């Protein structure tokens, strides 16, 4: 299998689908000649022309609305929001419009829209260019949320997103763009709602998504090497739909669970997953649930501070060690 960067895997998915489906078009700020802030769409203008790869004004709310309107009319737009932080400007069109239209208009027409956006910190971009805001959107019924952790999933989940009839928020890991991994050629769509075991282990389960999967695996490897503790790492792949079954099964098998989330602690996705575990696997828990999340603070620019606010491998490893011994 060819090794490929995460960003190239995303581009492969776009190319695969644009070749296959004339209805797919790309909309976003600087996605054409510039190739996107993170170069995911580089070369696509040359390949598909300005009709299908459209540079836009800096109008995030309207870009999402534009995609929604075009989707209602039978196209399958993929809108890029340059940083996930800017989703804040598009919340109205995402939450009050795209997410609700299918239900609120009596299930007459679906909204096959993909909103791609890079999330996460670790690059010193500071408070408005580093956030992971999945929890906001997960709290809004009607949106699917995909968060690939690997190049293969970047391609596979994006293919599925573009074929889904619902609005999909597609969260890309900003630090993952330059990660390499094996990516199958051709049509390798990965279904939504099926978690993946990123690392096997029987002593505890670490639940994560996006960039935190890799951090958790590194932490788990260190834990195994230093203490002989084998942590299983479960990569959720999609938050909506959420693979509660796999979560419950994993927790039932290990009896210890920890959730790792890059976003802030309070009212985070981890809190929701924790409660799902209470609902579905409480009787299997041998120790209290743990979570390792971002601190409840803006994400600072300075490396010395950012490192503390965001969860990383050593904080995950020590929490996992405590959990294994609880």
């Amino acid at each position: 299998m060819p090794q490929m960067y995460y960003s190239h895997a995303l581009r492969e998915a776009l190319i695969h689908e644009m070749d296959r489906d004339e209805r797919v078009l790309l909309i976003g700020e600087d996605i054409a000649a510039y190739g996107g802030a993170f170069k995911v769409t580089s070369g696509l203008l040359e390949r598909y022309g300005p009709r299908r790869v459209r540079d836009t004004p800096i109008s995030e709310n309207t870009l999402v609305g534009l995609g929604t309107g075009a989707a209602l009319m039978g196209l399958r737009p993929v809108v890029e929001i340059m940083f996930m932080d800017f989703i804040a400007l598009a919340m109205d069109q995402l939450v009050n419009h795209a997410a609700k239209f299918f239900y609120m208009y009596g299930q007459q027409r679906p909204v096959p829209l993909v909103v791609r956006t890079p999330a996460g910190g670790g690059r010193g971009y500071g408070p408005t260019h580093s956030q992971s805001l999945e929890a906001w959107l997960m709290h809004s019924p009607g949106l699917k949320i995909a968060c690939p952790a690997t190049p293969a999933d970047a391609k596979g989940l994006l293919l599925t997103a573009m074929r889904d009839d619902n609005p999909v928020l597609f969260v890309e890991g900003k630090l993952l763009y330059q990660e390499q991994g094996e990516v199958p050629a051709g049509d390798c769509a990965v279904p939504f709602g099926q978690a993946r075991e990123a690392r096997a282990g029987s002593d505890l389960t670490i639940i994560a998504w996006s960039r935190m999967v890799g951090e958790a695996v590194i932490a788990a490897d260190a834990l195994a090497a230093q203490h002989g503790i084998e942590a299983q790492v479960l990569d959720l792949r999609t938050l909506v739909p959420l693979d509660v079954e796999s979560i419950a099964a994993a927790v039932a098998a290990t009896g210890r669970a920890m959730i790792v989330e890059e976003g802030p602690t309070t009212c985070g996705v981890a809190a929701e997953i924790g409660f799902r575990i209470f609902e579905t696997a409480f009787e299997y828990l041998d120790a209290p649930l743990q979570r390792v999340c971002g601190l409840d603070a803006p994400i600072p620019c300075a490396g010395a501070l950012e490192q503390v606010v965001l969860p990383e491998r050593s904080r995950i490893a020590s929490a996992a060690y405590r959990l294994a011994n609880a």
Partner: protein
Amino acid sequence: MSAAPSPALTSPDRLRLYRQMHLVRRFDERVMELFGQGLIKGTAHACCGQEASAVGVCAALGPHDQVSSTHRGHGHLIAKGGCVDRLMAELFGKETGYSRGRGGSQHVAAYEVGFLGSNGITAGGLPIATGAALAIAHRQEPHVVVAFFGEGATGQGAFHEAVNLGAAWKLPIVYVCENNLYAMGTVISQTSPVPHVADRAQGYGIPGVVVDGNDLDAVYAATVEAVTRARAGAGPSLLECKTYRIYGHSKGDSERVYRTRAEEATWAAHDPLVLAAARLRADGLLDDASDAALVAAVYDRIEQAVEFAKTSPDPDPAAAATGVFAGE
């Protein structure tokens, strides 16, 4: 406004549009009565007084043209060819409503007649309509989109973003502002630095046209011109229909403390139905008897809609949280 000739409306067309304006008027007046009787709950915004803009604009559109609407959208839907039975059923919260009772007055779509939806978010429909126009342009179809909005919506970023983008890309869309002077109780002169909403068009390099929004023929002619331009690929126009809502903002606003009874009386003398009737009479197309018969038929039609709504089934409570996602 330039005097480009618009395709003349035939006599039957003129009578049909006059009847449609009555249908809109009676629909919303009946809705207010039903609120009073407790038969309809939630909220609704009557468009009485604004019938000429809804009907005049939609008269210039074909079945494949699209319309996006606002919270005050019953007239737009009826004018676009929507069925009053299904609209009334929606207000009653019935399964037979356009949105199967999920949307209510402010959230009705009827894609089968090119109605992209009324919208509870002020200016929310403008980006959506612009996206529909993008799809039409993308496929090089000969259709156009009309985005209705109130003058209050021009305070929203979504208005400016959408018009800017539609203009920059020369999309086939007409932005139609129904300026009824008041956003709830706030008069537009307090919140806008320009005397006319149409003045905004200059900033986007598109035609801005002011029209007497209570004059059906004038609205129709202005829309034909804007639509022709849009279909020809020359891009959007901003059409401002000066109008007035007869009743309060919504059912809760019976006092209308922000405006005077004298001002209301001035506008009442300029009622779009009265204006249209006078013209039809002058042209020998309408007399007392035929007018009375037409209005009586409209009343009957609305009573049928009420009956349809009343006798329709409620949605199944077991389905309340289903249908959130397509294909599941």
